[in-house]
């Protein structure tokens, strides 16, 4: 294995000087015989070392270390304000870490933000656009297209709402449109922030099914959650005292 140091990824800028991303190329990736693998998921490994986060002066967490490889899920739990969302924001390159390092091992040249989907509290949907237009935009923007927007909406049970402006949808339906974004572009790492909130029982089952399929096809998942998710084996990372 050959390791090469790459500059901090493009979406972080100067604030991210504490996090180093390392790239390890693997030359055997093409030989892995898995069907419909999330692109670049084979051989993806993320190692987090001694991560610390400070927000408005307060040290939210420190000394956080974990690693995540292909097909693995990590559930981040902890009380409100323990830093679950902050951890996801750091992984997404949205927030600068106070200290620590994130190492990424993967085939190809992508930066960490280009490898992940983030579905958080802010759903990144434009109310004036229809569900289908929102997803079509995300598909063109993120690259590596997978399902068509219509198929993705059908997969989350919103096939009939494709032509409706998102403004007319309920909170749970909006959340499902945001989750459908996971399906329109293929990305190995899913960052989900309390994915079950506002979802009814049927939709939660649908979501668990999507997550299980993602993991079994070699994807990675980091989810901030208050309860256990029935998605098979998952490790738990407990934040806070």
């Amino acid at each position: 294995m050959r390791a090469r140091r790459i500059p901090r990824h493009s979406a972080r800028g100067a604030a991210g000087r504490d996090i180093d991303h390392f790239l390890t190329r693997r030359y055997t990736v093409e030989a892995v015989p898995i069907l419909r693998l999330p692109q670049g998921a084979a051989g993806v490994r993320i190692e987090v070392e001694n991560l610390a986060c400070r927000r408005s002066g307060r040290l939210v967490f420190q000394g956080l270390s974990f690693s995540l490889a292909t097909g693995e899920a990590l559930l981040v739990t902890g009380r409100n304000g323990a830093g679950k969302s902050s951890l996801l924001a750091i992984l997404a390159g949205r927030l600068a870490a106070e200290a620590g390092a994130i190492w990424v091992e993967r085939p190809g040249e992508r930066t960490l933000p280009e490898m992940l989907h983030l579905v958080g509290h802010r759903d990144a949907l434009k109310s004036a656009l229809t569900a289908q237009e929102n997803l079509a935009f995300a598909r063109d923007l993120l690259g590596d297209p997978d399902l068509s927007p219509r198929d993705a909406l059908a997969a989350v049970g919103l096939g009939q709402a494709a032509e409706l402006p998102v403004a007319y949808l309920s909170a749970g339906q909006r959340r499902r449109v945001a989750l459908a974004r996971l399906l329109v572009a293929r990305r190995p790492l899913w960052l989900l922030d309390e994915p079950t909130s506002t979802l009814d029982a049927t939709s939660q089952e649908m979501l668990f099914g999507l997550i299980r399929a993602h993991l079994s096809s070699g994807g990675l998942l980091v989810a901030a959650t208050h309860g256990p998710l029935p998605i098979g084996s998952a490790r738990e990372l407990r934040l806070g005292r």
Partner: protein
Amino acid sequence: MTRAFLALIARDLRLAARIGGSGALVLVFFLMFVTLVPFALGPDLNLLSRIGPAILWLAAVLATLIGLDRLFQADEEDGSLDLLRSSPLPLELVVVAKVIAHWLATGLPLALFAPLFGLLVALTPAGMAATTATLLAGTPALTFIGAVGAALTSTIRRGGLIVPILVLPLMIPTLIFGVSAANAALGGTVPFVAPFLMLTALSLAAAVIGTMGAAAALRWSE
């Protein structure tokens, strides 16, 4: 990457058309300002046609500021900026795409309607042509300069008035050369080309500096 770039422009244009805020509102403001001037100055046609280009340019500068504060703030509030950050598109190109869409929705209509509104201030045909040409060449500079202010204030709630305070001083050179080029076309000692080329240069420089500045501001704000 081209696909993502074009998709972003198309989305912003579609949003502008559907929400109807920026484009139409900017034109209405432009019209209001130009209509008020003859009432304030009195019906002296010679005076009006002499200061006509200046009035249209002033109106254009102020109208450009409308909606500018929402350029990145709207995306910041609903999380779209996180989505844009995780696209393969560098933030610089995100800024360029959004500025192009914003200019097509506001700056371009301003320039195209300038001859019509010029009638209100008794502009001569030569003056109308010159004003339109200078607005076409100069409004991109206004939008690119404004983008820096918009990016800096993207995380500030109710930052509406801060953007004008930040960017208006930087727009003054564009205003000076825009008005002097338009006036030169009405006659005078300066040829039209000299200030007009300066204006185009300002637009090109603003396109580079504004893009870099806005992208840096977006990275820095979190």
